[in-house]
């Protein structure tokens, strides 16, 4: 009976994990005792307010991090390419358990974590026990989910985790734990969806095996063809569809809200500590920060669209020939300009209208991301129909472009 309980309990643990924890705890306890004994011998009686670091506790936290990493990374076929390749030769399907242990959370995990918490019940930092396991587990699994395009689950998990600083500053440990548990549930849901998509297409096809080294780009030994001719933009579908763009914008807005609330909480905390009135830091800084974010987003958009192409005619040519506006090319500037304008105008207008800073941060970030990632043309449409000259931005290529111009 005991053997069966032990088997059930250790089903989600790495091999010999409990033995390792026990031996390590004894070793670190011995190390800790020896250190403090030697310290006492050296300096005499330790001061009353001396904070002793508990070796076994630190060891347990490290073990929990290691356990989470083993569960979410070491036995995860998304990360282990050779394991994945082998798995694809077997009749395994997502309905069955993975051969080297389950990744999903199970009731045994709750029992083990509860036992660990009980073992440290009198320690003020006992909340760190579940967090030491859950935080790395969620982070690693969320990354795997995002690789497999489970953006909703990944975004929800990250969004919930970004609330932690606010809750920590507000001294709400139970709410923080609830928040982490909700994030774990989101990553679990995403992982189950990822599993359902098996077999995964993660290995690049031979189609894209010609790559350009940085050296080749630097010395200009790569030109237009075949680097960019047939396959740049072979996917007509946009990188993000409308729903995904909205989700991304909402997620970034949520991050902005959390950042705003965290800064406000920190300011309130500092004001109480320094016995001074609370300053509205966010209200003052938001227009400037939003302008900077808008500028960066606009530059990223412009870079991703226009880095490998040149103007159809030079600026001098435009002026001399009176072609000030070339719609087929200049449309590439509309989205970056709108992005920049959103960052510069929206926060100022909303704050003038008396909107709360959190709401202003959300709306501003939402619109910036929506403009930068969602405005037409899509990258695929632009690369296939934009009226640009094809080139790469290397000195030699620029010379070659000029060569064509003069031929």
């Amino acid at each position: 009976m005991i053997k069966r309980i032990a088997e059930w309990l250790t089903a989600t643990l790495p091999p010999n994990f409990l033995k390792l924890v026990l031996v390590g705890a004894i070793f670190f306890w011995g190390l800790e005792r020896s250190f403090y004994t030697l310290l006492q011998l050296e300096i005499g009686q330790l001061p009353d307010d001396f904070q002793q670091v508990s070796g076994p506790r630190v060891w347990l936290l490290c073990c929990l991090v290691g356990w989470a990493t083993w569960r979410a990374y070491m036995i995860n076929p998304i990360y282990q390419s050779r394991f994945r390749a082998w798995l694809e030769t077997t009749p395994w399907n997502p309905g069955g358990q993975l051969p080297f242990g389950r990744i999903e959370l199970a009731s045994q995990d709750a029992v083990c974590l509860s036992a660990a918490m009980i073992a440290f019940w009198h320690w003020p930092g006992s909340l760190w026990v579940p967090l030491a396991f859950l935080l790395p587990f969620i982070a690693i699994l969320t990354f795997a989910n995002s690789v497999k395009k489970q953006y909703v689950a990944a975004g929800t998990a990250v969004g919930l985790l970004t609330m932690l600083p606010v809750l920590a500053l507000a001294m709400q440990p139970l709410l923080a734990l609830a928040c982490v548990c909700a994030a774990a549930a989101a990553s679990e849901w995403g992982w189950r969806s990822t599993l359902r998509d098996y077999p995964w297409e993660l290995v690049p096809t031979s189609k894209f095996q010609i790559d350009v080294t940085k050296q080749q780009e630097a010395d200009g030994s790569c030109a237009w063809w075949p680097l960019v001719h047939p396959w740049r933009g072979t996917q007509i579908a946009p990188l993000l569809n409308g729903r995904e763009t909205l989700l991304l914008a909402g997620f970034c807005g949520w991050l902005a809200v959390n950042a705003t609330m965290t800064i406000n909480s920190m300011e309130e905390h500092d004001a109480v500590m320094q016995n001074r009135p609370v300053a509205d830091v966010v209200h003052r800084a938001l227009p400037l920060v939003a302008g900077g974010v808008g500028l960066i987003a606009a530059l990223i958009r412009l870079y991703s669209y226009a880095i490998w192409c040149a103007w159809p005619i030079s600026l001098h040519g435009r002026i001399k020939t009176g072609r000030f506006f070339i719609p087929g090319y200049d449309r590439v500037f509309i989205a970056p300009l709108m992005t920049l304008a959103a960052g510069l105008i929206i926060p100022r207008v909303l704050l003038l209208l008396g909107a709360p800073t959190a709401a202003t941060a959300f709306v501003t970030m939402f619109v910036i991301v929506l403009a930068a990632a969602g405005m037409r043309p899509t990258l695929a449409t632009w690369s296939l129909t934009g009226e640009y000259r094809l080139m790469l931005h290397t000195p030699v290529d620029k010379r070659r472009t000029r060569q064509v111009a003069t031929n």
Partner: protein
Amino acid sequence: MIRVVNLTQHYGVRPVLKNVSLEIPTGELVTILGPNGMGKSTLLAAMAGLLAPQEGYVEFDGVRRRSSPAGELAIRRQVAYLPDAPWLPLTRTGREFLMAVGGLYDRKPSHRMQHAERLLKLFNLTEQADWAMRSYSAGQQKKIALCGTLITEAPYLLLDEPFSGGLDPAGILALKRVLERLAACDKRTVVMTTPVPELIETFSERIVIIKDGQVAANDTVVGLKAAAGVDGPLELALEKLMYPETLENIESYFTEEGL
């Protein structure tokens, strides 16, 4: 069929192509000739989709370039373009390069392997096939770039000065015969530029002469000879059609010297 309609291209102020219109039927081997700097490469680059002309457009089988994503993608899969100075991944072997380029055009791996072998043999590159391309001579690099274009098996081949760049006589002969056969038997459309007319008299079906950014002549070899009133080799006809001022300059050079 390739249709070039009222194409005008200028980079700065000087127009390189002025209202050029052209029709190239499927399966024809066409050579674009012309003095340096008159727009041959620009015309080919516009056909290849590298340039967005200020006016006019290029059509392949009735689909206009850069008019829609699906149409443009369809054209890209039909067209192989070889620039004058082609890019090569120099750290890769010639065989790897050919396999990768063939893959871009969705040729099956087994077919690519076999085709690559035949191309390497054709251009005497079998021995160098598994060397990194940085160790190739200029002529060998040109040959592997040509192989890269041919392995695509694209219905439209746009070749910018394929006979230049250090190609040896064996390579020139192989390329001439292959292009001739591809156009005649495989109904592939080949458009190429060259500044050297001697090479193309025997196999080019039609010659387009570009001068001052405009089409000065567009005819068969026989037609061009008749237009120039020349009964001898094509070279003489081209001298009259393309370089009349050069002939006058030669005459005046010797006349003024009293020779």
